[in-house]
């Protein structure tokens, strides 16, 4: 099961901050975390990252992991410097007003799995 980013955008009623022309990209799993240490340890490529953190290391972390899209939850919008970093790296940024729990739940209900190896 995978979802295109335009589907993620619709499910989360999200605003596209960066990459409106890149929404055909597909993700085959999602990870919701504010702990970049965990994200760096466990996230596979082609995973969607959902987080409430908006600092530059979210972009850095996505970059090293080949994460192509990030959803900021609770209506958070990062600063322009962070947005510019995402533009340079072709990382799609979305912002949703749902909480991390709600956003993850909605995507999971839509069929997007985690990557724990457990159903």
């Amino acid at each position, binding site marked *: 099961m995978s979802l295109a980013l335009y589907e993620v955008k619709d499910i989360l009623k999200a605003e596209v901050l960066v990459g409106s022309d890149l929404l055909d990209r597909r993700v085959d799993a999602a990870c919701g975390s504010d702990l970049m240490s965990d*994200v760096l340890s466990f996230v596979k490529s082609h995973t969607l990252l959902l987080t409430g953190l908006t600092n530059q290391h979210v972009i*850095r972390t996505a970059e*090293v992991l080949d994460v192509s899209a990030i959803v900021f939850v609770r209506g958070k919008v990062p600063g322009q410097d962070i947005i510019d970093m995402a533009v340079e790296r072709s990382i799609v940024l979305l912002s949703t007003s749902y909480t991390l729990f709600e956003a993850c739940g909605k995507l999971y209900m839509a069929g997007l799995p985690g990557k724990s190896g457990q159903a």
Partner: protein
Amino acid sequence: MLTDDRENIIELSYPVSPNDFSAAGDVSSKVKMLLKHLGIDAAIVRRAAIACYEAELNLVIHSYGGSITLIVSPKEIIIKAEDTGPGIPDIELAMTAGYSTAPEAARELGFGAGMGLPNIKRCADMFDIQSQVGQGTLLTIIIHHD
């Protein structure tokens, strides 16, 4: 044979400043770009980039300053992270997942969960760490790419 191999070796060294969280990741970004440019398999580039970023963060968070050296031979990617202190008193403890001495500034950014060194080891085919309290730490990893 050795001469031929040496001609194909790339070696680059980058300084890393202590406590400079805004620059943390610059080196890893450059390393990743270079490895991609060399046509190395994407999954291997990803492992090298993760290890490099974790090592770079460790230098920023914990060290008095240091450097990251990247050596790419036709068969191996070698990443060395060297610093001038303070050194790790108990390496076995530092390697324990969840053990961390990171300050609040690192935790606020989403780091300092005590996952860095174990994660570097997981990404590496060879992992070595030498440290002396008051002297510094040398972390060396090798990732095969042939």
